[in-house]
């Protein structure tokens, strides 16, 4: 490789591509694993069996026999009398090992602990603590329990975020002794199970046939939508940045291969005259390429793993927990990606070597008949599209990126051709003649250089400038005063009074939204059966209770994906995209809900995306308010409250006993953390793109090095001075740089708007700064690279270059 700068460059390009992809791959894998754990935390277990009757001992024993950890929970509503006023509470009795997954946080008088209440003790929600005031005991049936602390966070709250009554957490034994768990009680019994995946699967298989219709098996799914949306955005950002690096590396690989082949042709012609068959010649060079691929891929993966460790070191508490170690899958993906890059960007160019005419030993100007550059590029784009699809498993993204690249190359080719034609009259003027002549020397090569520089600058602009725009838009999604409390179960006739009370304290809500609990019973007249759905999440969605929300207009952070928003007075539903996808719903389908015994039915007229991480009030199913007529419903709003506004909370709960206040501060902070750390991670991955862009620049300059060397020698021989030669040669790079810069600015501007809207569902505008920076960057960077590449050639005596 010592004598083959082309291969050396190729190795570097592969190293960067694989390192970028594998570091993001490893990191994303670990975050994904952590998310699964997060999902488990949201259940407080890996698997939950829930039913109205106590859990039979046999179920527990079987769990233990399989090596699983087991724990029981029973929840039931109860009424406490506090200062002679009745207060509905949701009692949750837990065993000492609760929770099996996730974290329970209880604030006692002195510290924060993670232990559930012991017999004789009770832990109360903040709202209940406010009502209890200075009282230190709570009654539970026949017992009086000591209040031992305030509930800060319980992992499996998400499943029941909108419960109406405040939580009273007690020990399992106390619940049994309270006398409240008679046969008529409305208790829900849950069996929590946790262990390794195989044991859990074995238990699931065992329990399934034993469950009756009233029992439900709850499994881990994606966790809370607010968090998973934020993380999914982060992952897309990271993948995109890594793919940009790998795309650039691909271009560098293509350019490097071209240089390698150009230099190998003479040797290949000699090998042919010595009697090697065309396939033998190809194999001779292919072996080198394969070795370089293998070494580049392995070293790249190693580097990627190390970078990932650094990422984790810096951002590991992304989810507020230690990340689990990564699996081996990302390694396989990156190695295959290296192979794909070489296959798409390198091999087609290398194949030309097979057809080198032996006569080249006599006539050096004889080139092998090869595929035209445009076809080679198209081939590379197709292969790249497949790689993207494989990497991010998103056909839309892969398709749009591939089509985008073809469009980019076509635009580059067209503009390059047009501009060179347009500039032709300038060739009569001495200064630009050499530069322009150099550019029209080999149009295919010029296009490659233009595409290389142009793509490099485009991606730099995108990641350097647009990244800031997009990240700002992302962060703006979650402003400092994002709602951190929900007020739910406001009675329709209380809305005005609640609103007045909030305003009086300078708090403005996000608006008041009527809601009602409902169960989906049929779609298009067909009863909904969980067993009709293959996927776990769909089965769960089919059986869960929905909070139907009502509002005439679509929320600001929603986006219409299909269908139309309803007309005033039209009975209709709008469905969130994930729900629509899981249940296979489309505009036109009619949904039948059961609302406390009343039937409610209307067609779906639109599918919309929801920015769950905005923390605005949002609903999976939103209905036109005309549907509300005659239905029992309550109203909810969300507000931002400071720590100092506890008194207001107290006043709300006192004045409106039915109203429940739910704090989502911890979740909000978690999402905020994901955004901040996500932005950091993207900046880290951005460095790879930078490295790849530099490699592309080097490759693009190197590719015409021999040609340029002989031209410089000739100019020197003819008597051109140092300065004259520099000016003449630099004119080539400056024209190239300016063209690439302008094209890159145009492209980056279009792409930024499209990307922000299509991929991240964020809005950004056009930036005039892009154009200025793009052009300057083009002229500056390409000019500098050109200067650096030309300088050593200027120093060599002309004779040396002519030999």
């Amino acid at each position, binding site marked *: 490789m010592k004598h083959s700068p082309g291969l050396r460059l190729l190795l570097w390009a592969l190293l960067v591509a694989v390192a970028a992809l594998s570091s993001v791959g490893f990191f994303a894998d670990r975050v994904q694993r952590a998310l699964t754990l997060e999902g488990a935390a949201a259940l407080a277990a890996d698997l939950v069996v829930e039913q109205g009757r106590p859990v039979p001992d046999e179920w527990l024993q079987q769990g233990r026999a399989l090596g699983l950890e087991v724990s029981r929970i029973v929840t039931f509503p109860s009424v406490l009398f506090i200062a002679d006023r009745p207060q509905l509470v949701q009692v949750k009795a837990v065993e000492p090992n609760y929770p099996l997954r996730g974290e329970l946080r209880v604030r006692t008088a002195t510290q924060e602990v993670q232990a559930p209440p012991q017999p004789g003790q009770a832990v109360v929600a903040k709202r209940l603590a406010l009502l209890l005031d200075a009282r230190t005991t709570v009654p539970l049936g026949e017992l009086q329990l000591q209040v031992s602390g305030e509930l800060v966070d319980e992992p499996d709250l998400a499943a029941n975020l909108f419960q109406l009554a405040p939580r009273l957490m007690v020990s399992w034994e106390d619940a049994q002794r309270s006398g409240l768990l008679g046969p008529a009680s409305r208790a829900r019994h849950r069996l929590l199970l946790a262990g390794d995946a195989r044991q859990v699967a074995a238990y699931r298989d065992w329990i399934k046939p034993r469950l009756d219709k009233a029992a439900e098996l709850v499994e881990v799914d994606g966790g809370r939508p607010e968090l998973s949306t934020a993380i999914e955005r982060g992952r897309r950002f990271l993948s995109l940045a890594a793919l940009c690096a790998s795309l650039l590396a691909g271009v560098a690989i293509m350019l490097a291969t071209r240089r390698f082949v150009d230099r190998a042709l003479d040797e290949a012609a000699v090998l042919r005259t010595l009697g090697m068959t065309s396939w033998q010649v190809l194999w001779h060079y292919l072996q080198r390429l394969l070795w370089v691929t293998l070494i580049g891929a392995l070293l790249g993966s190693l580097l990627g793993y190390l970078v990932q460790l650094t990422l984790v070191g810096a951002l590991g508490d992304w989810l507020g927990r230690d990340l689990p170690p990564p699996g081996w899958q990302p390694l396989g993906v990156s190695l295959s990606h290296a192979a794909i890059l070489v296959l798409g960007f390198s091999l087609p160019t290398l194949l030309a070597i097979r057809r080198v005419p032996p006569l080249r030993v006599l006539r050096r100007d004889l080139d092998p008949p090869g595929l035209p550059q445009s076809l080679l590029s198209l081939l590379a784009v197709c292969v790249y599209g497949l790689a993207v699809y494989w990497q991010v498993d998103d056909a839309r993204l892969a398709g749009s990126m591939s089509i985008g690249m073809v469009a980019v190359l076509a635009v580059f080719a067209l503009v390059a051709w047009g501009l060179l034609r347009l500039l032709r009259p300038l060739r009569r003027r001495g200064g630009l003649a050499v530069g322009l*002549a150099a550019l029209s020397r080999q149009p295919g090569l010029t296009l490659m250089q233009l595409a290389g520089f142009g793509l490099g600058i485009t991606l730099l602009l995108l990641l350097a400038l647009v990244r800031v725009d997009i990240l700002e838009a992302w962060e703006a999604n979650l402003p400092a005063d994002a709602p951190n409390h929900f007020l739910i179960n406001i009675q329709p006739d209380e809305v005005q009074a609640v609103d007045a009370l909030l305003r009086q304290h300078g708090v403005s809500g996000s608006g008041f939204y009527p809601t009602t609990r409902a169960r989906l019973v049929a779609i298009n007249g067909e009863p909904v059966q969980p067993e009709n759905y293959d996927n776990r999440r769909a089965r769960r969605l089919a059986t869960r209770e929905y909070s139907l929300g009502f509002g005439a207009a679509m929320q600001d952070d929603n986006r219409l994906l299909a269908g139309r928003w309803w007309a005033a007075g039209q009975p209709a539903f709008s469905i969130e995209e994930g729900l629509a996808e899981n249940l296979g719903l489309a505009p036109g389908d009619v949904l039948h809900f059961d609302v406390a015994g009343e039937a409610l039915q209307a067609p779906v007229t639109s599918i919309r995306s929801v920015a769950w991480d905005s923390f605005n009030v949002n609903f999976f199913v939103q209905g036109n308010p005309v549907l509300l007529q005659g239905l029992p419903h309550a109203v909810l709003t969300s507000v931002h409250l400071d720590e100092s506004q506890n008194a207001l909370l107290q006043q709300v709960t006192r004045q409106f006993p039915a109203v429940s206040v739910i704090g989502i501060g911890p979740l909000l902070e978690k999402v905020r953390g994901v955004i901040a750390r996500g932005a950091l991670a993207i900046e880290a991955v951005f460095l790879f793109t930078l490295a790849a862009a530099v490699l592309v620049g080097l490759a693009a300059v190197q590719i015409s090095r021999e040609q340029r060397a002989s031209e410089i020698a000739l100019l020197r021989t003819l*008597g051109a001075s140092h300065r*004259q030669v520099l000016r003449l040669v630099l004119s080539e790079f400056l024209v190239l740089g300016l063209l690439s810069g302008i094209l890159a600015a145009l492209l980056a501007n279009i792409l930024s708007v499209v990307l922000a809207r299509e991929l991240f569902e964020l809005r950004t505008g056009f930036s005039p700064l892009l154009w200025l920076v793009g052009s300057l960057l083009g002229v500056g960077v390409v000019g500098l690279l050109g200067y650096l590449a030309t300088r050593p050639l200027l120093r060599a005596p002309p004779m040396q270059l002519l030999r």
Partner: protein
Amino acid sequence: MDAPGGGSLAILRGIDLQVNAGEALAILGASGSGKSTLLGLLAGLDQPSSGEVSLLERPLQELDEDQRARLRLGRVGFVFQSFQLMPGMTALENVRLPLQLTGQADAQVQAERLLRDVGLRDRMSHLPQQLSGGEQQRVAIARAFAGPPRVLFADEPTGNLDSNTGEQVEQLLFDLRDQFGTTLALVTHEQRLADRCDRVVRLDAGQLDA
């Protein structure tokens, strides 16, 4: 002379040679005898490790690379075995290039006249790759005489051409040389070409037989 291995290699030794104004000198020798190296030293394209070379009464070892280039500018022409045309430039642009480098206002007119003189009136806007070997060398000769030069160095000017074309190019070279009264230093291994010169020196293993 530094050899690629890092040691030094004596290519030329004890050379004492003078080419007079208006004279045509042929340097004859076998491959590897050092002919091209000698030509490069004479033209100031390279520097000897020891010894002195003067061109147009200027001692080259006292000049730096840029000063040597300036000395050649407009005064020295070259014809190479492998033509050495700028591949991205048309025949006309190639001939115009040295005239533009010296800043001549009528570069275009002069270049067109020279190309007509070498019989390429209809090939002016062709790129080198669109021309035959003989035509390319004629463009190179037209370029070499743009100026016109006081000294012309030619390195195997017919080496890449068949004998017929070679003879035509050779004729052209000497016709123009007579027309402009240019001093000619020519490297060749062809006796026939050498015979057309005023004087012939033989180079053997880096030494002049004279």
